[in-house]
């Protein structure tokens, strides 16, 4: 597997990460080196093996379906880069 500039550009776009055009080739090389190294996993026979998503106890805990926090708009908004009243402000998304 080899990543060309177009693929790197596409992944960067999926990740919402601005990558200057002149950095694409070098980044592609770096990612290829990592992916090439990762390829050795293909040597492992994983037939019939269940994937392990994590090492915590498998059963998810349930909690009471109740409101236990909230009504703290000032705390929630205290780090907002831009706000209008009790709202986060972003560039216009609907024409």
């Amino acid at each position, binding site marked *: 597997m080899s990543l060309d500039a177009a693929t790197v550009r596409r992944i960067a776009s999926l*990740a*919402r990460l601005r*990558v200057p055009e002149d950095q694409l080739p070098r980044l592609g090389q*770096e990612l290829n080196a*990592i992916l090439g190294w990762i390829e050795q*996993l293909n040597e492992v026979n994983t037939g019939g093996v269940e994937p392990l998503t*994590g090492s915590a106890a498998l059963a998810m*805990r349930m909690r009471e379906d109740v409101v236990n926090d909230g009504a703290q708009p000032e705390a929630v908004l205290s780090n907002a880069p831009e706000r209008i009243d009790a709202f986060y402000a972003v*560039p216009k998304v609907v024409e």
Partner: protein
Amino acid sequence: MSLTELSIAEARAGLDRKSFSAVELAQAHLDAIAALNPRLNAFILPTPERALADARAADDRIARGAARPLEGIPLGIKDLFCTRGVRSTAGSRILGNFVPPYESTVTANLFRDGAVMLGKTNLDEFAMGSSNMTSAYGGVENPWQRKGDAATRLVPGGSSGGSAAAVAARLCLGATATDTGGSIRQPAAFCGIAGIKPTYGRCSRWGIVAFASSLDQAGPMARSVRDNAILLGSMAGFDPKDSTSAERPVPDFAAACDQPMKGLRIGVPKEYRVPGMSAEIEALWQQGMAWLREQGAEIREISLPHTKYALPTYYIVAPAEASSNLARYDGVRYGLRVIEPGDSLDEMYERTRGEGFGAEVRRRILIGTYVLSAGYYDAYYLKAQKVRALIARDFERAFADVDAILTPTAPSAAFGMGEKMDDPVTMYLNDVFTVTANLAGLPGLSVPAGLSAEGLPLGLQVVGRAFDEETVFAVGAAIERAAGFTARPVLRAGG
């Protein structure tokens, strides 16, 4: 003895005897930070006013006879833990102005028990690194130097490099840290101190900036195994706010440090003799086996056949989870926003994230996005999860025959600042011995065990069964007793 040389147990005893006050203890460490931090850069943000206020409150409680388990003990807090009202950056530019309105569970537990916060310690950006060189707030210098070579500045390891350097240089009695692939144990080994990554689920992840949620686990760093046990006793415990937090009682970890070795079976995995491992690390490993045998343990060779696949597995699983976790940094709710006039919402996201994240974080987000993307999910991510299952099964089988596993912590001693920076894979190899415990969710402790020919500290690692930190502490304490590691770094308070 100087106040900055005390163990946590000694400091607690001295405070209760009123040999010194909590304010004096805090001030001694603040003076050390003022003297050495400009060079070491171990703290991103010292918090002297907060430390003295905490210490005055501690002195009040001690005077009233109401001292708590960590009353007056000055600690460094890794800047990955959210601290209420105190800037928490994760070592990233993107969180450069973030002041959490809440407290992480682990730090809340420490403060509940009377700990004093000296400041926020440096780390690799979002805990992604093994050298602390990826921090947006600059690298950290290891307080140790090669014999006769004061000119070469060494890394403290990473990602908890600031915590490790601060503890080693006597800027604090202990520190919090986190470990996703070795970020507690490798820097502990590089800086000649002890540190434990407990079992996944032992410490709550709530309020810790997430890197790879199925691997991240908080733990302490301190200069002795017993001090680690004392700190972990306060940090650990069930937390309903973390869905993977273990609903189990917290044992008396400090008492476990006195358990005898007689009758214990210690496994030595043959696959950890990796190509290129230095002869002195091999010799230290043999020495560790001899120490444990002399104290009555039985050494058995074991096999963990999928060891060589652990790092490539990790470099799929961790970036995949990171790419998802770091999607939250979008310049809308907190942190950096970078926007040009006329930008669309997507352009704002891309500009913010492109400028807010450093090179290593961007690399890992891209790898993670790629392995999760349509058409590649099965080939990479699902495959890695299956190999992860095999790695966990290796340990399960081994623990049928042994009670703990002994390995080196890292394949080398600390390296120079700027070395290993050209090739990401070379840097990743630092974690070859530690990453398996994260993938399997097991506790791992690094203990300083000797010095390299160049005079740098080397560590041995003890891995235990899930939720059996007690045996891990017992074996670690046995190594510590036998090693008699008293060497101290060149750059240290009062040094």
